[in-house]
């Protein structure tokens, strides 16, 4: 499989995407905002639809839309205990989806524009694309490494329901949403929507099922993303399936295994106690 250049390119892209997204996923799952990816992806689609409608800015407008969306999301701060942030993100998703449909209905082949601009295919990724991806993702990763503690104490305050302590404008919260926004725009361009969503959520959730330690969770999530990239592409190559869906299926299988592990260890613990 790795004698073929396009499979090497696909695997490189899968590794870069997998590492950053599985890391960000630990935050996303911890904060309970799993729809943030789909909502930002949809805002990006709205940007493409808008650009196609006005006939210009097919690459810049979606990026501006997504970053603005990420900025707005970082301001969401709910004091009412009956409401969850997830609900607001869900509303944003539905609202922007509807707006996209409305704009597309007045734009000939707007649908195919969205397909072309937003949904990449990992099998036809080129080296220049991988370089861009590496630079953007490397920069985000570096920022998170340097300020690791800042980002994690923020996510923990969300986990503990102490979000009222975060404040309306918190620079770290803002930077977190910008990271997510950028990561999603670039990753979706290469992998497609569903693989990106899966890379973000499945390794993090599976790792949480396996371990309780924060650092171990991150490491397990990394490993899961790498395994999924490797076995997913192998599966796609040997049985000739679309690559993105193959990776997602492998991630799904890993999640099932992690769930089984979780059930078994819990049962074992009960017995021994």
């Amino acid at each position: 499989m790795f004698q073929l250049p396009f499979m090497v390119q696909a695997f490189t892209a899968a590794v870069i995407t997998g590492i950053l997204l599985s890391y960000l996923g630990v935050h996303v799952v911890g904060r309970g905002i799993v729809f943030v990816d789909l909502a930002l992806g949809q805002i990006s689609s709205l940007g493409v639809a808008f650009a196609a409608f006005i006939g210009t800015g097919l690459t810049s407008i979606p990026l501006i839309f997504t970053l603005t969306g990420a900025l707005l999301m970082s301001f969401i701060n709910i004091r009412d205990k009956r409401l969850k942030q997830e609900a607001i993100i869900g509303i944003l998703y539905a609202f922007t989806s509807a707006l996209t449909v409305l704009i597309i209905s007045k734009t000939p082949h707007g649908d195919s524009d969205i397909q072309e601009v937003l949904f990449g295919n990992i099998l036809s990724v080129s080296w220049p694309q991988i370089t861009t991806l590496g630079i953007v993702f490397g920069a985000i990763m570096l920022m998170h490494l340097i300020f690791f503690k800042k980002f994690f104490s923020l996510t923990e305050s969300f986990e503990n329901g102490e979000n009222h302590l975060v404040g309306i404008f918190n620079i770290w919260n803002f930077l977190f949403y910008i990271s997510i926004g950028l990561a999603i725009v670039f990753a979706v361009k290469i992998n497609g929507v569903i693989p990106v969503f899966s890379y973000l959520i499945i390794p993090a959730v599976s790792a949480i099922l396996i371990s309780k330690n924060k650092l171990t969770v991150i490491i397990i999530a990394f490993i899961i993303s790498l395994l999924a990239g490797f076995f997913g592409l192998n599966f796609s190559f040997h049985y000739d399936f679309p690559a993105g869906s193959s990776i997602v299926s492998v991630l799904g299988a890993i999640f099932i295994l992690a769930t089984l592990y979780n059930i078994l260890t819990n049962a074992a613990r009960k017995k021994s106690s």
Partner: protein
Amino acid sequence: MKRISIFTAIAFFVFQHAVAGTIKVVTTLTDLKSITELIGGNKVAVTSIATGYQNPHFVDPKPSYIINLSGADLFVTIGLDLETGWSPQLLASSRNTKIQKGAPGYVDASENMALLQVPTAANRAEGDIHIYGNPHYWLDPLNGKVIARNIANGLERVDPADKAIFEANLATFNKTIDDKMKDWQAKMAPFKGSKIIAYHNEWVYFEKRFGLEIVDFMEPKPGIPPTPSQLVKVINEIKSNNIKVIISSPYFSTSSSDVVAKQTGVKVVTMATSTGAFPTVKTYFDVFDYDIAQITAALK
């Protein structure tokens, strides 16, 4: 061990092709495959990327497409902007210099084609999404002859030694088209000028060749699913023009057309847009045999 098994798999793959023929050809559509096989005879082994029942605007890449392309001697495409969403990317990933645009192994079947609906000023807002003209040109059998000529030229570029064979096959192909054309024209003659509705703007070449008149489309603009106001418009047009048929394609939902059919009694006919659209449509000629049988039955 794994490495070896992959190698053998690839080697076997390549070998399989080598026995079947000498020139390895990859086409984007099944119609191009059918015509290439007719022109190349036993000198070629042809694979098509898209299937005959797939919307040619959208194809989800699989590894085998790129592997096939990387070992191909000739690549045949419909061109214009029909396959822009997927074929350039696959071609680039294949890294096969023999079949890149401009290389001898690259055949653009639309060369010297008399295109319809070429926009005078590319204005996307007006629905002129096909900036080079309507790319569904293979649905006129006489355009099949132009396609065949382009394919023969390509085969002769990569295998000049067998030029005589290709030219003889081309002559046979052209004669078959001419013979069948008489039959098709005769069958369609009683329905000359019949008004019909089409789902998507892909029948303009068929319409012009066989003297039909497409009054409107189910899609308000190409690629936009039917809206309520469009359905009302189409229903009124069907009633005022006494239209009997809506023609659609295998990859479009017929639910909107069925609504119109219930309201007006019009018949919804799913036509073959490409070779392999239905099990009985095995060659490029079968496409027209099938479509003309369907449409004449519905118009009666």
